[in-house]
């Protein structure tokens, strides 16, 4: 998985960033579990998933359980690479924008 820092506008939106974070730690996660974890409505969640799916970052799988249709989400290889690169970029930016400790750079 590439760790070269690269900003990704598709992943950057907070909801999509959290969806990718959850999926990167699992092999598959269920729609309702992810929706509840990031505290959004069904429609907002579906919008985020549509964008991630269109970018080729997330794959959806439908499965029936007890007569109910459930949707399972997987981060694709391309999604995993893009997410890792985006996190690396966030870490790089966070280091750059972190406040300097008191006294550092002061010569008096």
């Amino acid at each position, binding site marked *: 998985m590439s760790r070269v820092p690269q900003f990704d506008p598709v992943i950057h939106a907070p909801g999509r*960033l959290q969806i990718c*974070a*959850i999926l990167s*730690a699992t*092999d598959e*996660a269920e729609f309702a*579990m992810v929706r509840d*974890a990031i505290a959004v409505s069904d429609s907002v969640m579906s919008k985020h998933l549509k964008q991630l799916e269109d970018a080729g970052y997330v794959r959806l799988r439908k499965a029936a359980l007890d007569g109910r249709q459930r949707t399972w989400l997987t981060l694709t290889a391309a999604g995993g690479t893009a997410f890792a690169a985006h996190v690396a970029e966030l*870490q790089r930016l966070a280091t750059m924008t972190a406040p300097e400790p008191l006294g550092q750079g002061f010569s008096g």
Partner: protein
Amino acid sequence: MTEDQTPAEALASISAARTAVGGRVDEKSWTYDLIYSSLAAVMIGAHAFPSPIGVLGSVFGIVGLALLVRTWADRTGVLISGLKPPRARWVSVGLGLVLVAVIFSVIAGRQLELWWVPLPLAAITFVAALVASRLWRRVYRAEMGVR
């Protein structure tokens, strides 16, 4: 949540999301670990018995493990293979090496015509799988930032 969060806020939101996943891996429940270890032990122990029982034991174990994983995924909303997270992966690799050694020992026992060899190996498999399963939960939760 706004679109213009700082990099530090974005990183914090990633940690929060991962903690939510880690919380799904229950550390207190032993049910999964006990069923998992028992199925692994059956797969090995069955080879102490005459021909069809060994094969049937392996098939029973594989089907049982697949059903166990799927049932737990449906219950928790997440499916996590042992090889997914970097640090927890090493626990799975360690267990895999133990199981390879056990399988080679079963084969050696068969060649030496020591029919009883799979029985103590089944006990070893049970303990190794149970310890690894419990340890994996701990490492995974720690890796996800769950306290």
